[in-house]
C-alpha cells in the first residue's frame, strides 16, 4: 500500500474520509464545492491539521494523531499543484523549478531541461509567470511539483483556471504523463467527466464523508446509494419496490413490473431507489421490431429533445407512471432517422442489465 489516508474530525470542517492509493494509480476525489476535498489534500500535504487520523506513505508515517506524529510539509515529499498554481511571480520558470529541486542534485540544468520537456515547455525557461498563458502556468506548476521527486502528487482542481480548449489539451497531456509516474496521484475535482477520464478510481466525498470508492465505471453506473447517485449526477433516479413474481424477485414501478438482472441482497416488499442509464434505454423502431422489444417495455410521449456533440437527449413522459419524465440518450443520427419529434409516442425497453437498484 503506497498512500493510506484516514481522516476524522467533527469541526471546524466535518471530515470522515478513508481511502488508499497505489503507486502509479490516479485517484480522483470528487464532490461538490465545499465538500472538503481540498481540505483532504491539504491534510495529506501537511498544510492543514485534522483532529484524528493517519496519513501513511510508503513505509513512513506522515501523520498519526494517536502517536502524535505530524511531519511538516517540508518533511513529507509531496508535489502539490495548487488551484491558482501559486507560482513564484518574481522568479523565472527555471528559477521556480530550481527552488524545488533538491540542493544536492548536481546537474540542475539537466534536470530543469528534463522537467520542462516532460510538460512540453522547452524554451520558456527565462519567462516570468505573468508572461505565460494559463495552460503554460499549469504546466510549470506541474513541473515544479515533480521537481522534488515527490512520493505523492497532489492536484487541486488543476484545470479550473484554464479555458475549455486548453483544458482538453492538458487532459491529454496529463493522461500521457501520469502513465510514466510511479507515485500515487490524487486529483481533486468537481468535474465528473474530468475525473472519469483521468482517474483509475473515484472517491466520492460529500459533506466531508467518503460515500463510495471504486472504479469510475462502478461509481458512475453502480452507485451504492441514492446520495452517491445524486453526487455523480446520475439521471433517471426513481423509486420502486421489490416484488416477488412467480418466485422471482422483480421491481415494481407504478403500474410496471420490471425484471432486473441483479437483485441479490434485496428483500421482497423493500422500497428501493433505482437508476436507468440514459444511454442504455433501448428505443423501439417503428418500422421493424428490434432486438429486446419484450424486455421491460415502456410507452411514453416525447416532451423535449436536445442535441449536443452528436448525442440527442430525448425527454419523454410515461403516462402509466404519473407522467414521470425519463431521459434517454441516442446518437443524433438515430434520433433523426426515427423522426423523434416532440409530442410523438414512442416505446422503449428498459434493459434488465441497465437497471441499477440501490438502497434508499
Amino acid at each position: 500500500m503506497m498512500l493510506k489516508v484516514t481522516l476524522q474530525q467533527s469541526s471546524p470542517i466535518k471530515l470522515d474520509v478513508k481511502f488508499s492509493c497505489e503507486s502509479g494509480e490516479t485517484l480522483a476525489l470528487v464532490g461538490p464545492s465545499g465538500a472538503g476535498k481540498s481540505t483532504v489534500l491539504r491534510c495529506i500535504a501537511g498544510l492543514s491539521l485534522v483532529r484524528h487520523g493517519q496519513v501513511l506513505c510508503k513505509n513512513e508515517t506522515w501523520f498519526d494523531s494517536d502517536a502524535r506524529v505530524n511531519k511538516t510539509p517540508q518533511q513529507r515529499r509531496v508535489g502539490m499543484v495548487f488551484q491558482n498554481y501559486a507560482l513564484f511571480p518574481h522568479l523565472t520558470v527555471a528559477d521556480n523549478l530550481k527552488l524545488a529541486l533538491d540542493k544536492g542534485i548536481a546537474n540542475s540544468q539537466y534536470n530543469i531541461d528534463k522537467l520542462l520537456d516532460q510538460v512540453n515547455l522547452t524554451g520558456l525557461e527565462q519567462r516570468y509567470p505573468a508572461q505565460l498563458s494559463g495552460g503554460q502556468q499549469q504546466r510549470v506548476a506541474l513541473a515544479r511539483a515533480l521537481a522534488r521527486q515527490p512520493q505523492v502528487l497532489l492536484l487541486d482542481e488543476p484545470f479550473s483556471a484554464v479555458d475549455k480548449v486548453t483544458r482538453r489539451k492538458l487532459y491529454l497531456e496529463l493522461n500521457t504523463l501520469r502513465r510514466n509516474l510511479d507515485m500515487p496521484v490524487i486529483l481533486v475535482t468537481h468535474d465528473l467527466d474530468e475525473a472519469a477520464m483521468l482517474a483509475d478510481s473515484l472517491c466520492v466525498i460529500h459533506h466531508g464523508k467518503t460515500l463510495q470508492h471504486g472504479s469510475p465505471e462502478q461509481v458512475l453506473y453502480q452507485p451504492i446509494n441514492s446520495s452517491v447517485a445524486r453526487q455523480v449526477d446520475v439521471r433517471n433516479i426513481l423509486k420502486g419496490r421489490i416484488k416477488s413474481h412467480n418466485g422471482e424477485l422483480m421491481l415494481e414501478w407504478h403500474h410496471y413490473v420490471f425484471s432486473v438482472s441483479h437483485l441479490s441482497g434485496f428483500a421482497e416488499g423493500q422500497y428501493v431507489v433505482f437508476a436507468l442509464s440514459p444511454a442504455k434505454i433501448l428505443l423501439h423502431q417503428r418500422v421493424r421490431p428490434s432486438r429486446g422489444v419484450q424486455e421491460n417495455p415502456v410507452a411514453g410521449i416525447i416532451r423535449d429533445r436536445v442535441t449536443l456533440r452528436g448525442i440527442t437527449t430525448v425527454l419523454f413522459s410515461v403516462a402509466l407512471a404519473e407522467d414521470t419524465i425519463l431521459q434517454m440518450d441516442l446518437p443524433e443520427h438515430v434520433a433523426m432517422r426515427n423522426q423523434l419529434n416532440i409530442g410523438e409516442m414512442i416505446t422503449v425497453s428498459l434493459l434488465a442489465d441497465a437497471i441499477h437498484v440501490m438502497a434508499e
Partner: protein
Amino acid sequence: MDWQAFEVSIMLAVLTCLSLLPIGLALAYLLVKSNFMGRGVIEAIITLPLVLPPTVLGYFLLVGMDNESFFGSLFVSLTGQSLAFSFAGLWFASIIYSLPFAVQPMMRSLEMIEPEIREAAWCSGLSKWRTFFKIELPLAWPGILTAMVLCFSHTLGEFGVVLMIGGNIAGETRTLSIAIYDSVLAFEHQQAQTMSIILLAIALITISVVYSFNRTRVLRF
C-alpha cells in the same frame, strides 16, 4: 549652511532606517501571520505616533527618558550617560516616531502575498526561513522600500519630537529642521532657504526613486 546639522540629520535618518528594517519587519510579520487576542491593541499602539501631536509624543518620551524613570536610569547604569538631550535619545525617539511609517507599508505588502505562494514554497521543500528570504522578502520588497523611504524622509523632517527631547545641541541633537527654525528666528533667510531647498530635493529624489521602482516592478510582473 549648517553642515554639522546636515550631518546629524542624515546620520539620524540612516540609523533610524537601519534599525527599523528588522524591527518593522519583525512586527509586521508577527501582526500579519498571527491572530492573537491583543492584535488590534498592538496595531493601535504602533499607529499612535501617526495621530499624536509630536509635542505630546515628545513629552511622554522625555518623561520616559528622565534619569529618575525606570528606562532612563537603566540607560544611565548601562552607558553612564543620560538618554534625554543626547543623540542616542534622539535615535530612540525617532524609531518610535517613525514606527508606523515602517510597519504599515511592510504589513500591507506582506498581506498581499497569497498564502498559497508560501505553502507552495513549503511543499517545494523550502524551510520557513528560506521561504522568508527567497519568496516573501523579494515579494514584499516594494513595501519595504516604501517603508524605508518614508522613515528616512520622515526622520529627516522631524521637528517637534526633536525639540522636546533633543533640545538644540550643536553636533549632537541639532538637526537640519531645527537649524532652519533657528535661522528664521535669527533673520538668516538665505541660510534657511538653502537648507530648506536641500531637504526638499532629498524628499523629491527619494519619493521619485520609489515610484519609478514600483512602476518597473508592476510592468514586469
